[in-house]
């Protein structure tokens, strides 16, 4: 029997009940799964005007048709909700082993509704569904939560095979930067999805499946998997660079190109980048690499810090984390950077936004907007001890952390210097300065969930030349590049694959079509899967428009638009967003105000989309 689209579990936390429903096959064909189908379900059921932290908001855990199948890097699930950080649609993605196990339960999606009056966890074990009390877990960090849950399972083998997603204290305390952690170290990181889970008094989701996954066209699927695997195992990035050095391999090249955000985006080069590079991580703190479900890349770093002040072990730091907790906070010591990463995972906070918020706090401190008395510490750039302390306070809402844990937009506004916020739609910018890589500026400005690098990773072509090498400093042609990357990403995110498959030369829409046909039985054409990515992008856009977002929100901080970089290759450059945005809107089939035209909506079968008031 074909496992897709299959069934979803709808959990009403207010009433403590649940129902099982069939997933609509037509919606599954049109939106695939993961980010796409999750967003479609969300938009059909939840008003764009909902308060993100109210019981009326819903939280959707959505797998894709490839999740858990054995297709390469098929480890991903998507959390879809309305973001308390940005007020936009949120879809936050994570790998590890939880997503595949979720599919093995026989439920391809879980929709959480309402709010429990007491902390609970959803427990799905070998066919049985329960809502169990979780008061004893409330206040516990994510790693301790996992340990307690696993220790409570008598059968050691069953305990080992059980997979857990949970929030930490940050999610419980409704930090707008809170994430949902799974398998201890993997995060559905961005946009504050953990706060939504916390607002529902849902501490954890515990899964152990007993069902297999059936591909609709098994022979076709096997061939497609083999072809994709061959590309991954021979591609230089996925077979050598990422397994050996992890994502932090980018530190040196991004710094060399003058786009490594430093001291809250006040500079684009960091003098001691080599000390925090992927090579340095591999030489000094890495114990082994680790892969997610069905992944041959194994880019994750298991690390250990021996310095007694920062001692610990865990996973990370990844590139974005080390770039932002390092260079952007002016810190060149891997020990406090890695410790801060561990703390974010344990408290359940997004490392990207947390790091940028610390950098913002440091700028506010150095410029006198936050006093030493208020900070309670010397928050100067470069002070690793202060970063670790502030991250801890953000996890527990203590001291300055109570303000900082809601992100750098709120912090910069509260302390009277909004210009120190380096983000888009209230979400912090990842570790590439768009003044020296123009397409990324357009990616950030137009991203439907606020500033984000994984909504259109044009770094792959503008800097790294993965598919073709583009000049990062020109704006010509970048609108088209950004659109293609955004649509392909939406497709991959909907399928349940890791985005890193797209870092394989030659991997593209044709591979996606073949994999999806095999897994789902839908006779997709290349055009149809391409259209799906674009459909997802436009649906997200429509949701945001209903919330009230306009062209004015598709922009970047003034610093990036008006203050030129002062050194390195992109010296003298600003991000010339206005050169790219009109062409981007036109290529998208949107009018000059960035509103999708009736023709475009009709072509994408979005003309009949209705939103709740």
């Amino acid at each position: 029997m074909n496992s897709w689209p299959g069934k979803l579990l709808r959990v009403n936390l207010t009433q403590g009940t649940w129902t099982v429903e069939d997933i609509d096959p037509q919606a599954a064909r049109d939106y695939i799964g993961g980010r796409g189908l999750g967003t479609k379900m969300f938009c059909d059921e939840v008003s764009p005007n909902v308060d993100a932290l109210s019981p009326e908001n819903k939280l959707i855990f959505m797998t894709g048709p490839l999740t858990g199948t054995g297709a390469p890097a098929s480890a991903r699930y998507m959390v879809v909700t309305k973001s308390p950080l940005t007020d936009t649609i949120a879809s936050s993605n994570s790998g590890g082993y939880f997503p595949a196990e979720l599919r093995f339960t026989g439920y391809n999606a879980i929709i959480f509704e309402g709010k429990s009056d007491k902390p609970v966890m959803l427990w799905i074990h070998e066919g049985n569904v329960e809502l169990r009390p979780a008061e004893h877990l409330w206040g516990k960090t994510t790693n301790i939560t996992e340990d307690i849950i696993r220790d409570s399972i008598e059968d050691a083998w069953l305990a080992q095979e059980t997979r857990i997603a949970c929030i930490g204290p940050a999610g419980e305390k409704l930090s707008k930067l809170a994430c949902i952690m799974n398998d201890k170290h993997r995060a559905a990181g961005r946009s504050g999805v953990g706060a939504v889970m916390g607002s529902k008094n849902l501490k954890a989701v515990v899964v152990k499946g007993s069902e297999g996954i059936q591909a609709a066209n098994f022979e076709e699927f096997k061939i497609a998997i083999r072809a994709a695997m061959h590309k991954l195992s021979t591609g230089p990035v996925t077979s050598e660079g990422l397994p050996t050095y992890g994502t932090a391999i980018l530190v040196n090249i991004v710094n060399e190109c003058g786009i490594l955000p430093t001291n809250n985006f006040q500079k684009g080069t960091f003098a001691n980048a080599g000390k925090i590079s992927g090579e340095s991580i591999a030489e000094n703190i890495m114990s082994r690499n680790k892969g997610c479900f069905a992944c041959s890349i194994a880019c994750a770093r298991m690390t250990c810090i021996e310095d007694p002040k920062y001692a610990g072990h865990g996973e990370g730091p990844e590139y974005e984390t080390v770039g932002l907790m390092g260079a952007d906070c002016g810190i060149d010591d891997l020990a406090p950077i890695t410790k801060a990463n561990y703390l974010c995972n344990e408290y359940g906070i997004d490392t990207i936004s947390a790091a940028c918020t610390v950098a913002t706090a440091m700028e506010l401190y150095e410029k006198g907007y936050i006093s030493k008395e208020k900070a309670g510490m010397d928050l100067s750039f470069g002070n690793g001890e202060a970063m670790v302390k502030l991250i801890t306070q953000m996890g527990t809402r203590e001291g300055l952390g109570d303000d900082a844990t809601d992100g750098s937009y709120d912090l910069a506004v509260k302390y009277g210097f909004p210009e120190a916020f380096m983000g888009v739609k209230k979400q912090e910018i990842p570790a590439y300065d768009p003044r020296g890589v123009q397409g990324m500026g357009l990616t950030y400005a137009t991203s439907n969930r606020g500033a984000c690098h994984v909504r259109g990773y044009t770094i792959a072509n503008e800097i790294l030349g993965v598919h073709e090498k583009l000049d990062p400093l020109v704006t010509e042609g970048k609108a088209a590049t950004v659109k293609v990357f955004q649509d392909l990403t939406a497709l991959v995110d909907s399928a349940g694959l890791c985005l890193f498959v797209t870092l394989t030369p030659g991997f593209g829409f044709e591979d996606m079509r073949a994999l999806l046909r095999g897994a789902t039985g839908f006779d997709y054409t290349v055009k149809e899967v391409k259209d799906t990515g674009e459909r997802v992008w436009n649906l997200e856009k429509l949701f945001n428009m209903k919330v009230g977002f306009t062209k004015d929100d598709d922009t970047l901080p003034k610093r990036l638009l008006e203050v030129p970089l002062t050194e390195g290759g992109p010296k003298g450059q600003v991000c010339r967003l206005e050169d790219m945005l009109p062409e981007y809107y036109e290529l998208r089939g949107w009018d000059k105000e960035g509103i999708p035209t009736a023709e475009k909506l009709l072509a994408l079968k979005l003309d009949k989309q209705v939103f709740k008031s």
Partner: protein
Amino acid sequence: MQIELKLFMRFKDFLPEGAVDGKTPMTLEKGTTFESLLKIIGMSVTEDKIIVINGISHKQGSAVNALQLKNNDVVAIFPPIAGG
């Protein structure tokens, strides 16, 4: 003229003796091209690589190969990588 050469990851094997932290100053004849530099250090011209000269990333191929290096240029070469 003198340039600074920086090589990363497995390309460090091509650094001349005496290089520290993956980089070294090199004295070259005036007019030396990028392709000539590769030949001097024994690197394949055609093998996939990422080339950054003075902070500007270049497309691999004939244009960068023919580029004449200048005094004080900083040349950085990486194996194919990506991530993020």
